[in-house]
């Protein structure tokens, strides 16, 4: 499981230098996902900085949050 040494792309540079503070683990992100996604859809709610930072740094959790938000935000059809 090794290969030629990698060169950093500009996209990788940005991702490596991303500030992901305040800390939130993937486990805590999953634990809080439902309530935070409902809060994100509430225009009066303030997003949790730790949740926002985690989603910026973790594409898998961000995809799950986006999928959950899209699922519960679907307007009923007549």
């Amino acid at each position: 499981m090794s290969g030629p040494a990698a060169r950093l792309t500009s996209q990788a540079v940005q991702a490596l230098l991303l500030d992901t503070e305040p800390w939130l683990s993937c486990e805590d992100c999953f634990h809080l996902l439902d309530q935070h996604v409902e809060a994100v859809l509430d225009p009066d709610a303030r997003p949790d900085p730790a949740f926002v930072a985690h989603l910026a740094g973790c594409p898998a959790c961000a995809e799950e949050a986006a999928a959950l938000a899209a699922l519960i935000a679907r307007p009923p059809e007549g």
Partner: protein
Amino acid sequence: MPIIRSEPAPSLDRIESARHKDIDRDTHTDIAFDWVAGLNATGREREDALRRLHALMVRAAGHQVWRLRGLLADDSPGTIEDIVNLVADDAMTALLGKLDTFEGRSRFTTWAFKFAIYQAGNEVRRRQWQHRQVELRDVATPADPSPGPEHHAEAGDLAVELSRAMHAALTPHQRRIAVALLVDEVPIDVLAERLATTRGALYKTLHDVRSRLRAHLVASGHLDSQGGIA
């Protein structure tokens, strides 16, 4: 095993359209249903709750597999249906194991959906990478000695400084994890499975990598104290 059909399979668009109509019809009754009471009941009341919960899992799994279908080598209706049913079963098992942790801080349906969405993402990405080898590569070592920050603007290459910082501030393990996740873009749950670890452990490694690199580059004058390019 191939699925033998007597009639042509419906198009994916028709399946998705029909699925959305089912979702809209069921949403309001599912939100109002007392899920915890039903799932903790016995007899027919529990069976009814389990049946409804499975439908909920199929709905969320279908939603996420549909979103991610572009990652699948085979996104035929039969394969998608197989994945959705597999994911729904796994998600239902995971949810029932955590039922006593539901605290009512969100709607039960939102809480339940996340289990299926999590399982669906993992399964689609696992299939996407099942025939691909994951290489754990190191970062290339820049040939020249590191110039000071006064030369950085002329060089204009933060990637070179960052490569140097990775060799100076990170362990070989941290560099390989960072390269796999952020250069080679191996999905974090796929890498976790290959390395027999967890998504959370890999994310913690990545978080430490980012913190160390930012601190190193601030100390060397290549980033300002706010993390911007100096």
